[in-house]
């Protein structure tokens, strides 16, 4: 009998179906790996099990008995502990307090028993003493720790639950080799005690090093479970990809302009925070795709080119001239454009009218100081119409629009004065399908008119369907270039999941 079983668990966030049909069965004393591409629903499934997300449907059985998990506390009572992918730490509290936060020991008088608390925390801190690195101690406040050290604290916190079932949702993403090795030793000890582990990672080598079985989730649906001993990375990737490879790339003739490829943007061994030795060139009329798992340096490169993040070394050539990316103003003057999917942070001027949201680049490029609103409106309307933007009036605040339409406004900003190079940083995050279609049609048109375009997308289908070439990022550098018929989902996944 399985320790835990999930049957047809589902969860929707508004219109997003995060988990369609999650099935999972975990035995006692096994490390069960969950794998699936970004956004496939792994974390959602884990959170349902851990009680922090209520499922819309489905069944959960523990030791064969159906249970209802009403909240994180109830999950704990059912013997489930969890490491959260996005961590669940209180930044201003100490390591010890964080480890014991969910049930702090109290004395008989009702006060926090500091001695017991510190003794309990010390046990878990000691487990990682050899690999935690400088500045790590039980009384450090968490906000003063490095990313990997915070991740260790979250691991300790999960271990401190001493639960029979512990979920680790991407616990190794910031850890170094030695830390991962130590963590795996601990996992093996837990296994020997008969505890069950759910382990999520995007690193194929880790999965094969620690897993007993692997369950693959694709688009919110469990598509299969295999014994690690009986499978291999290629088979797992095929399961993740499914039959979607039949959806061959659909765009017209890539490299149609290849005859006279003039490069508008060239990078030579560019390095900076989060990426190293990135080199590529973008030709006029080309759409160059950036692929790979989230956070492998794609955004960092784009933001460095646009002068948002500093460049440590390497060279950027823009329109034949070297260019020192110093700040976005300079980048805009030099004919670069940058559209981010993180509208809140990078795009929308919140609370201001649509007109003001479309025109700032126009002001900068034309060195305008004063302008007649009516004249501006005449320039703005065509740009908005090209994108099929739905809006009440140019004077309406931008916040009155849906996410997709807000994104169109942000893009329209760049269309009044055409840039030479358009950098797209996951531009379709949170926008609907028809808006996406409009957007990609427009991007293709801009390319055809001679713009060089770099497109980073976290959705593989978008890349496969729209990019002429794809650079697959892994661990901050380009692992592989996919061109022509090589641009398949299988190749994309393989390069992305390869050991970095």
């Amino acid at each position: 009998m399985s320790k835990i079983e999930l049957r047809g668990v589902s969860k929707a966030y508004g219109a997003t179906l995060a988990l369609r049909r999650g099935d999972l069965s975990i035995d006692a004393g096994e490390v069960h790996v969950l794998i699936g591409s970004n956004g496939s629903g792994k974390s959602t499934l884990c959170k349902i099990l851990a009680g922090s997300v209520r499922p819309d449907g489905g069944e959960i059985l523990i030791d064969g008995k159906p249970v209802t998990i009403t909240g994180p506390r109830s999950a704990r009572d059912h013997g489930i502990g969890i490491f959260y992918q996005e961590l669940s730490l209180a930044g201003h509290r100490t390591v010890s307090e964080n480890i014991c936060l969910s049930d702090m020991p109290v004395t008989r008088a009702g006060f926090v028993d500091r001695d017991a608390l510190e003794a309990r925390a010390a046990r878990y801190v000691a487990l990682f003493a050899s690999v935690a690195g400088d500045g790590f101690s039980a009384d450090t406040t968490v906000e003063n720790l490095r990313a990997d050290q915070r991740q260790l604290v979250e691991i300790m916190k999960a271990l401190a639950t001493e639960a029979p079932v512990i979920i680790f949702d991407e616990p190794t993403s910031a850890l170094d080799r030695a830390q991962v090795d130590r963590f795996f030793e601990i996992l093996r000890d837990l296994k020997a005690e008969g505890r069950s582990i759910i382990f999520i990672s995007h690193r194929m080598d880790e999965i094969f090093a620690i897993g007993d079985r692997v369950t693959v989730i694709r688009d919110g649906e469990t598509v299969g479970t295999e014994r690690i001993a009986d499978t291999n990375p290629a088979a797992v990737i095929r399961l993740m990809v499914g039959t979607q490879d039949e959806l061959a790339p659909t765009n017209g003739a890539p490299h149609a302009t290849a005859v006279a490829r003039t490069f508008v943007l060239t990078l030579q061994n560019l390095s900076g925070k989060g990426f190293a030795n990135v080199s590529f060139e973008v030709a006029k009329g080309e759409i160059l795709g950036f692929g790979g798992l989230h956070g492998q340096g794609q955004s960092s490169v784009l933001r460095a080119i646009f002068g948002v993040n500093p460049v440590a070394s390497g060279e950027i050539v823009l329109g034949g001239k070297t260019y020192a990316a110093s700040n976005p103003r300079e980048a805009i003057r030099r004919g670069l454009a940058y559209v981010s999917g993180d509208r809140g942070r990078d795009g929308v001027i919140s609370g201001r009218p649509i007109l003001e949201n479309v025109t700032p680049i126009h002001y900068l490029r034309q060195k305008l100081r004063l302008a007649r609103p009516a004249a501006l409106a005449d320039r703005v309307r065509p740009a908005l119409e090209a994108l099929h933007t739905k809006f009440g009036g140019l004077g309406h605040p931008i916040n009155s629009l849906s996410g997709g339409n807000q994104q169109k406004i942000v893009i329209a900003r760049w269309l009044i004065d055409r840039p030479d190079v358009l950098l797209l940083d996951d531009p379709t995050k949170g926008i609907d399908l028809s808006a996406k279609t409009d957007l990609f049609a427009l991007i293709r048109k801009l390319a055809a008119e001679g713009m060089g375009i770099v497109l980073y997308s976290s959705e593989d289908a978008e890349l496969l369907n729209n990019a002429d070439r794809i650079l697959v990022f892994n661990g901050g550098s380009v692992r592989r270039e996919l061109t022509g018929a090589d641009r398949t989902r299988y190749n994309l996944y393989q390069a992305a999941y390869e050991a970095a």
Partner: protein
Amino acid sequence: MTDATLPTTRPGGLKRLVERYPFLPALVIALVLLALNGFYQPRSVSFIGITGLTKTYLALMMLAIAQTYVVYAGDIDLSAGAIVSLVNVVIVVMMEKMGGSGFSVVAALGLGLATGLACGIVNGVVVAALRLQAIVATFATSIFFTGLALYVMPVAGTPAPAAFWRTYGGRFFEIPFVFYAVVVLAIMLYVLARTRLSTQLLAVGDDAQAAFQSGLPVTRIRIQGYALCGLFAALAAFCVTGDTASGDPLVGGKMTLFSVAAVVLGGSALSGGYGTVIGSIIGALIIGLINSLVFFVGTPSEWQNLVQGLAILLALMAGILVGRRARA
């Protein structure tokens, strides 16, 4: 003297110190203000002067403490002053109705605490359970509480019985009563700081989602924070009553934002998760010292508000600068 000859000022050491005791910048400012007070009016730093200052500002200190517990959790209570008013009129009316005897005082204080607690719980339920925005919701309840206070005592002026304010202003064994109150308060705060609730409130303020995911009962914790706030607002009302010796349904209104200012002056973050009660007490003291300093330097009365405001602004900036320098 060059920097090289100062081996002891390790920046890391100062940083650690301020991190551990976020109220240190406030303490420095308070001491500077105290010195300035003494410079302009030597008598103000005498025993009698300090007693008077404590007597007048004990209420604000209490209310700053009250505010701190909700700010810990990232909430705010804009009704704190209204609770003070309500408790003030409730106890004055109660003592008057019962004849002003010693027993009536004790009974009235009990009722006052209950009133404060009830108001706090109402706030907590509205904010944490019904999930209304803390600023707006407590602004609304403040109007409601003020309405209640006006119902209990439509016009200001009912005097508190002598037994009450004589005690508050009096001395026992040559030591002013307010100092006993301060000692009791210190013990209470020490006890509270060691309960689980303080840490839980701070954890909720740090990241409510993370706290929830860690299995903390976030709603209950936030309600408890507001309840504690209500209790301390009631204590503040006792001090106000002792100081003014009368009932006034609007007495606390202007104290609300002073309590928030005191919390910020004391180094706590309004976004929650970071702060100390001691800091808020010092913050209240700073406001008191600024007010008396403005008076002692002989500011013309029509300028006093303006100068007070500027001085508080300066103190805030100084606190932030010192804090940032130390933490950088």
